[in-house]
């Protein structure tokens, strides 16, 4: 077990975005998080990565209580993340973007070593040809890869992926899924939020489902998919029902 989330509650004013959620992530597994829009998935990531302090509960990483630590400390302990809404450092080159991850991440490298790592990671995610381009000039799928590359460059033990497949075409989705599998093979634990059901069902070892901030189901992909509570939650969101039934 690498990450343990205990009874996390996060409120925004009157809104309870994450409500008493607990779960564990085992080393080297892929744990998927699904749930309708607004279920609190991104907020949960923000709590784990230290952007928000939870009102209640604890986050234990690698046996250490990291609740309320500033995000940069959490990053250095070995949790990296991507953002659902990409955050490229526009006026820096693609390579420099990735170097930021390598320089300030878990290994806290100097510039020269970071440059080498950045080049390797860019090759790994298939963005090497664009290394010297300004990040702002990339298209959205490329920016998603950049997010991933930056996170990987920090050599994390755990990586949080927030909808890295959203907005990609089927070919790009397949490529990205392959990359994610390779990441797992390299020994990194993955916690991923995804809307694309067929992809996450196929790739995850286990899945947890959030709805209105609460965890409503947890288990193997096929069990979760057949859970009446999950189906009900998704019925409230026609768009997602479509996604569920599409393939």
């Amino acid at each position: 077990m690498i990450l343990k989330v205990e009874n996390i509650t996060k409120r925004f004013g009157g809104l309870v975005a994450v409500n008493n959620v607990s779960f564990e992530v085992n080393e080297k597994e892929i744990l998927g998080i699904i749930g309708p829009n607004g279920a609190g998935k991104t907020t949960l990531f923000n709590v784990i990565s230290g952007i928000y302090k939870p009102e209640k509960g604890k986050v234990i990483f690698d046996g250490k209580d990291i609740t309320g630590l500033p995000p940069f400390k959490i990053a250095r302990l070995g949790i990296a993340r991507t953002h659902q809404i990409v955050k490229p450092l526009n006026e820096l080159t693609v390579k420099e973007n990735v170097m930021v991850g390598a320089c300030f991440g878990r290994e806290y490298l100097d510039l020269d070593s970071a440059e080498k790592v950045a080049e390797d990671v860019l090759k790994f995610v298939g963005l090497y040809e664009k290394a010297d381009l300004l990040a702002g000039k990339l298209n959205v799928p490329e920016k998603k890869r950049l997010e991933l590359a930056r996170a990987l460059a920090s050599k994390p033990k755990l990586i949080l992926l927030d909808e890295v497949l959203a907005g990609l075409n089927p070919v790009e989705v397949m490529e990205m899924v392959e990359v994610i599998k390779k990441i797992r093979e390299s020994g990194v634990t993955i916690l991923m939020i995804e809307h694309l059901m067929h992809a996450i069902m196929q790739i995850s070892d286990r899945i947890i489902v959030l709805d209105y901030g609460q965890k409503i189901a947890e288990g193997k992909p096929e069990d979760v998919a057949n859970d009446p509570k999950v189906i009900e939650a998704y019925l409230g969101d026609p768009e997602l029902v479509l996604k569920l039934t599409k393939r």
Partner: protein
Amino acid sequence: MKSLSWLIGLLIVIGAIPMITHDVTLRETVFIILMYIALAESLNIILGYTGYVSFGHIVFYGIGGYVAFLMIQNYGLNIIPAMILAGLFSALVAYCLGLAILRLRGAYFAIATIGVNEAVKALITNLEQVGGAEGIYFNIKVYSAYGGAEHAIWLSYYLMLAVTIAVVIVSWFVKKSKFGLGLMAIREDEDAAITLGVNTSKYKTLAYALSALFPGMIGAIFFFKNGNIEPESAFHLTKSIEMIFMVMLGGFGTVTGPMIGAIVYERIRGFLIVSEMFKALHIAISGIILLLIVLFMPRGIIGFVRDKIPALRRFVE
């Protein structure tokens, strides 16, 4: 390294001309150009690298000016230690201030820095111990320690040249360092930077302190040479904006940009003030030029050149 050698070479050439020709008018012009370069490069560290709009940056120049002036006047300190002390004091003020106001982002930070400058100005204007609104004048004897006023002026000139070279070297190394990469990450997206592991508050505060260090020293030299200091000229908000103007004109976030910006700005200003036709209207014309740059050349001269001639990109940092 190549681009740095060019810049330093250029500075030395510019700086050496008045020494060789012993032309006093030229020395005054170059003194001002050097001062502008050093101020613009300093501001660039917080504005250009880190993306924080320090609108009242001149406050550090004023503070440094007062600290050195009082040290020299009251305790007979030599200008060189006084200058170093002034720089360190300004940096310290910026550090402490930064811990508080760098939590503010965007326009809020800009307004706070204006507020700080105006508050300090009003305070000094009302402190009779430091001369109040009238300011303070050196005792004639002060310069005799340096072999007379003329020697003191030359000394100021050498010091300004040295400080300017130091600022450019520091800017260059900061830009090329891991520290600089962290600052630029903050500039581009502070939230992304902190999740990538950048200790943003520490970096911002250090950048702010560093960008205040040299203005403190420059204020010390300027007012030492001037022989008089008063709040209105030490904390003149327009000077702050001139600094921003030079950074923008040259191209912010680059090392060469603020240097070019400062030189061009000084030339434009010199031209406007000397020209019979424009003299009276020079402020209005500056306004128009500033507007044109903001609207049509937001990356400044360097950005413009880099866009047009990509081959030059490797040589201009």
